[in-house]
């Protein structure tokens, strides 16, 4: 097939294929550390059933 291709993920994500195994793990681990910045916002986030938020965790105040 010619022409453009549907892309579902970002260029940054798709570039993961070009990393070595060590680079992939290093980037993943670095991303995990960076993502801790949102811990307060997703403290009760839940995506394993009909609940979307752990009912025992107060929702963060809307900004």
């Amino acid at each position, binding site marked *: *097939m010619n022409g453009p*291709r549907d892309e579902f*993920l970002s260029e940054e994500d798709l570039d993961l294929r070009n990393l070595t195994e060590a680079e992939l793990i290093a*980037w993943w681990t670095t991303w995990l550390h960076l993502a801790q910045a*949102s811990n307060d916002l*997703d403290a009760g986030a839940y995506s394993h059933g009909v609940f979307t938020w752990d009912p025992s965790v107060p929702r963060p105040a809307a900004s």
Partner: protein
Amino acid sequence: MRNPYLDLTAEFNRGALRVLLSSGPAVVLHRLAVASKDGDWIVREQADAVAQVLSVLAAHGAVYRFGAPFDLRWLAGGWSSHFEFRQDDLRVRTDFVSRPPRLPAGTLARMWSDAASTGNAVVAVTPLAAIKLTNRERDYAVVGELARLMPDPADRLRFSRSARDLLGMAVQRRVAGLPLGEAHAAITTAAVGRLPFQVEAP
């Protein structure tokens, strides 16, 4: 730099295959996207596996999150269990299920068999796509890219999220003199003339 989810997988599987890395971490290891802060595993529905996982989690000081008890009776009912602990500056969340949704028992048995024979404790692309058919829209971006990695053309047809890819596969099959499945033929017939791009034979 140590990755907590790879380290945990090694600890869970020390001496025997007890868990398979699934969902978000598996998507990373298939090199598609880094998008989940949590660790997800399929655990063998065996007492030894549950005991080992609990022992490792206890050593890390993990506590339960909202969810079912990590117990064979609950796992066998399709429930999931969730824990959390701190490791330096990381909040480590761990999610477990023994009967992931949308995977028949035979598929699950083959996954364990394949992992044992290959030593690769990461859920393969096709069952991973089935697991990712959730009610979260963002998961379908991953499913669309997973489909492109599937070795079986029938699976690529089943999981594709791209009209371009479906039409391209239809053209390739027609050029090769292969019949289209009923669903695939219906999709391509409906799409031809209605999409804003042309599909040409390769």
